[in-house]
């Protein structure tokens, strides 16, 4: 992407295998279009997402990071997303503390049946990231 082009935020989307990844599959099967900015990484559960992954993504130049999993109460591993929710709350606070706009990080609950919602979540997140411009604060020089 050259700098002259319109700014396109780069997003890493961590999806739990059981709900949100399946939901993204359904968005595909239903051919619902959404922006191509987010690259998905499927993990077993949102509970498996270390806060370090999010910081690492920002370090490596992400403009936004999304974590998406099963609805609260529906986690395939019973309470993984409760753990995740608590950890992600800390991430928000930490980002704010170090001066990164906390809305560069988002968490959503998308079930396997919610293809349209998945597309909407990505669309909204990308739209909300655009006015913030590139994320520079945490980006390490070697990754720019």
């Amino acid at each position, binding site marked *: *992407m050259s700098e002259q082009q319109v700014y396109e935020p*780069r997003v*890493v989307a961590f999806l739990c295998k*059981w*709900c949100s990844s*399946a939901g*993204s*599959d359904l*968005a*595909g*099967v239903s*051919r*619902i*279009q*959404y*922006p*191509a900015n987010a*690259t*998905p*990484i*499927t*993990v*077993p*559960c949102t*509970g*498996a*997402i*270390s*806060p*370090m*992954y999010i910081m*690492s*993504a920002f370090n*490596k*130049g*992400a403009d936004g990071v999304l974590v998406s999993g099963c609805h609260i*109460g*529906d*986690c*395939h*591993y*019973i*309470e*993984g997303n409760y*753990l*995740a929710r608590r*950890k992600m709350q800390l991430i928000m606070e930490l980002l704010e503390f170090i001066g990164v706009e906390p809305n560069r990080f988002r968490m959503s609950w998308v*079930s*396997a*049946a*919610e293809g349209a919602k998945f*597309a909407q979540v990505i669309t909204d997140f990308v739209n909300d990231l655009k006015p913030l411009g590139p994320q520079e604060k945490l980006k390490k020089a070697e*990754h720019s």
Partner: protein
Amino acid sequence: MSKKRTGVFVCHCGTNIAATVDVAKVAKEMAGEDTVAFTKEYVYMCSEPGQESVVQAIKDNKLDSVVVTCCSPNLHEKTFRDNATRAGINNFTCEIANIREQCSWVHNDKAKGTEKAIKISRSVVRRVNRNQPLDAIAVNVTRRAMVIGGGVAGIQAALDIANAGVEVVLVEKQATIGGRMLQLSETFPTLDCSQCVLSPKMVEVKRHPKIKLMTYSEVQELTGSVGNFQVKALKKPTFVDPDKCKLCDECTAVCPVVVPNEYELNLTARRAIYIPYAQAIPASFTLDESVCLGLNPIVCGKCKDVCEADAINYDMRPETVTEDVGAIVVATGFDLYGQENMGELGGGKIEDVLDGLQFERLCSASGATKGHILRPSDHTEPKNVVFIQCVGSRDPAKHCAYCSKICCMYTAKHAQLYKHHVPDGRAYVFYIDIRSGGKGYEEFVQRTMEDNDTLYLRGRVSRLYRHNGKVRVLGTDTLSGQNVEIDADMVVLALAMVPSKGTTEIAKVLKIGRDKDGFLAEAHPKLKPVESVTAGIYLAGAAQAPKDIPETVAQAGAAAAKVIALLSQATLSRPPLIARVRRSHCTGCGMCVDACPFIAIRLENGKAVVNEALCEGCGSCSATCLRAAIDVKNVTQLQIYEMIEACLAV
């Protein structure tokens, strides 16, 4: 670790991928990866020649790892892992990069689609670099099954499984099995009596040596996984010993409590002690604790006094049982969309406006009116009845978007039954379309229209209200373009079928997915219609989608066959993607022990130890460990960091 030799196989999926992703470019970019020794693109990688070429390429190029960039892993992960095995390498060194569902199908800009496909593919190549060969874990199989829900679906599934020699626990929430079918009078398209076909099966369930029947019971908790589930169920007290109850009915005569009878859809009342239907199985009375005056001889105790069989026991207590089973069939059925949701049609407040099941009870010889169709308001025979189809169905703006599939048929049946009971009566049917696909179904509807001179009016009803002791129906006949006004003695609404309340509850307990309308979600809409997304849990009947009895029975049989096939294996293999501790890094802080939802970790000599039988591979431990000392195999922290890097490389 010596450098990997990875093969990357890029599928075009016809034009499904190739139209929005430059597949040649993806292959070229992957060829530039340090560990990639071979790349190939092909029009349909999953076709026979495609699969053969994967096997051949692994052998010819001495590949030790495989990445197939294609559709979702849910579709072909197993296909390509099997090919890895056939080519003589470990199947867990093969991974899928999903560039169809998560990429080509959702983007139309080819440059952007290609860029994203490259990132996805590269991230999976990096992941595979650190994949280790793993062996599936063999687990013993509990040769026992559970069926949840005792409608016709559950009954059929339980009988089929039990007849194959496998023990079955059948759990039903209500005081009797039979479900909705037991409430029906006669059934389309043959008009055979519903109870007459169902009752013998219910008795067979009760007597079957391989079936353990648990009525008035609810599943509360599920643990374990395919082949070895543990199900905790609560058996609610009925306060009547079914073995002693002689069905003499003396108790209901003395019980002072009168409440609406839900089994008769509130058309009649019952006592606190009652039997749902004469054909109930188990054949016993039940004491409804929620309305009884107090289960206490001092307060009332009348029923206990009159029971000569001494069947009533006020001291019965709820009982929790845990059943070990290898597979589960969920058959928890449907409810009707509540009339209260239909404000435009009176919201359930207009007398003599009934739902379809209430009409079934009026027609049924075992119902409150002994098979005479009488208006609830004044017990007179209605001389004209308006049936309205698609109530709450096919209305995405306000109600259910889907077609409930069976209402055209049962409305035609209702019109016929009505004419049989009231030959000089007149039936009107408001419809949008008639959908009568099914063997003998179209002929059945034609018979209703012709032989029984029922007037079919194409159009919606806009309003219902009470007028001079009748129900005034305002609608339009869209074929003639005229407004229609009918003063009906009775109106019957063919309300949408919705997943039962019990279905919603059980989906939460079992953690199985539901679709956008709340029905239980099948694992694949075409190829896995009776499997839930969770291995070992199968679906049957109207809990999965609206369906009639023949379809329900067919699906129940299919689910049973799957259960029998699963349980006929001596051992099952379980994915080995479970946690592993790097002892050198572990400080024994115990954070992971607390994070594990499955109590699979304990500390031993100051180091974390994972119980491989209990670990489900959720990864909560690895996200918690500050020293990266515990990881899920093949989804390690290091792998994720490298995937993140690949996703962000420009």
